[in-house]
């Protein structure tokens, strides 16, 4: 169980990036975090990964407080961040250096097969396409079999086709060992395809504004009415989260901008 308790982060320049965020994520659950830019969603992920320390509050995994990077928590960044001086196989095996060589090779080979890149094992990262590089980054994070995998807008730099492909692919990989996934995204479709629960955040200071349960059967049909229904609820919550409302003459409030203009 991943527990975020009253998590707050104020940067030295006074920016309150995150204010009292509490969240419990069950093992194997997939949680998506959506919100406009500057709502602290990346900050949240950095705190959970242990790369940054919270100003107040705490993160714990199965009761262990997370104060620095933890071996049971993997992370995939927006950019692949592959090490250019290691081959694809070397990058995937980066976190296994302390294991016996035979085990390293076996697990790297297995993980490369799972991301369908076995033939790319000996090449340099510079020879990969964007989608391939991000798959290597996912393989590198999963090869140590973490309990929790954090993904920070993992597919936002990819084209639409590759993105949809990798979303399905990620769910395939998730089904193998069922790690807890926390996905930060600004793509509402992506959030609904992936997540059991969608947390909508609002900025200044970053807080959780709404929680929407996406109770849809898997695999999810992006064209179904139920999918559309959840999508409308998420978009409505996003609109309200930005607080861009005009008060009309009769005192009622009305949304100023249409759904989808929230970023």
């Amino acid at each position, binding site marked *: 169980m991943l527990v975020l308790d009253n998590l707050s982060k104020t940067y030295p320049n006074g920016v309150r990036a995150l204010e009292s965020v509490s969240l419990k994520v069950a093992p194997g659950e997939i949680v998506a975090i959506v919100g406009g830019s500057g709502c602290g969603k990346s900050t949240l992920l950095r705190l959970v990964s242990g790369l940054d320390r919270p100003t107040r509050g705490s993160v714990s995994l199965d009761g262990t407080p997370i104060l620095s990077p933890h*071996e049971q928590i993997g992370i995939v960044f927006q950019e692949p961040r592959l090490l250019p001086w290691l081959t694809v196989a070397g990058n995937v095996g980066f976190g296994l250096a302390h294991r016996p060589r035979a085990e390293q090779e076996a697990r790297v080979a297995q993980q490369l097969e799972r991301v369908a890149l076995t033939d790319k094992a000996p090449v340099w990262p510079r020879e990969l396409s964007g989608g391939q590089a991000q798959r290597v980054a996912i393989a590198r994070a999963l090869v140590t079999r973490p309990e929790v995998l954090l993904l920070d807008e993992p597919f936002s730099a990819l084209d639409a086709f590759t993105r949809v492909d990798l979303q399905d692919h990620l769910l395939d990989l998730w089904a193998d060992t069922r790690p807890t996934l926390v996905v930060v995204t600004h793509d509402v479709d992506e959030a609904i395809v992936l997540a059991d629960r969608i947390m909508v955040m609002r900025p200044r200071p970053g807080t959780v504004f709404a929680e929407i349960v996406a109770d849809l059967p898997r695999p999810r049909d992006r064209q179904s009415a139920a999918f559309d229904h959840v999508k409308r609820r998420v978009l409505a919550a996003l609109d309200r989260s930005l607080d861009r409302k005009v008060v009309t003459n009769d005192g009622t409030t009305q949304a100023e901008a249409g759904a989808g203009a929230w970023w």
Partner: protein
Amino acid sequence: MTASAEPSVTTEPTQRAGAGLRLRPVLGLVLPVGLAVAWEIAVRAGFSDGRLVPPPSRIFATFVELWQTGELQRHTIATVLRVAAGFGFGVVTGTLTGALCGYSALARRLLDPTFQALRSIPSIAWIPLFILWLGIFETSKVTLIAVGVFFPVYLGVMGAVLSVDRKIVEVGRVFRLSGPAMVRRILLPAVLPAYVLSLRAGLGLGWMFVVAAELLGASEGLGFLLLDGQQLGKPAQIVAAIVAFAVIGKTTDWILVGITAPFLRWEDAYGAGR
């Protein structure tokens, strides 16, 4: 599994470049050899007596003569040993202080201003002082060369460490690398391309300063050969020594590049494989 139909961006330049690869070194010889041949013809045809600017044949004869008397070998070895010792000291001290100042902000604030001030002194200005302190023999010469090598290496290493991508360092942190492991697995490979460049710059300066050191009092070395040729009015010997410097300098640079190339095959840069 759906992610398989992605096209790879791999290109195969090795096939295409096969013939060009073999011809590439030859291309660099066109200008010097062409000039040498033209001058030889000009002297043979009587356009010049070639007394002050000796033709290639006379320089070659001087080489053969110096070789047969064993002079060439003696002077070359003396010079190469000086450069090797100075380069060695300069690289070790430059690398260590550069890495320290790149890694620690405190060390950088403490040491860097002094180094920058010392760097702006023309290194040849040290010669009188080094001779007073260290005598006229090898120590002062090697020290001068080491000083010349130190600064480019120091600057190169410090700059490279400072400019290592924070995002790459974060990958090391995510995998909980210890300090030494971070240096070995992230920082060292990341600074290697810039480090090789600074070593080459340092080596070039090493060859410059060995001449300065040898011109100011030496009984052997290629620099002595230069001075000897001037005092005895033997321009062919001067040119021979200059050619020897060019050949050895280029060769050592080439060896350095050759040794380091296998470690830099991963580079994804404009100049890679060109």
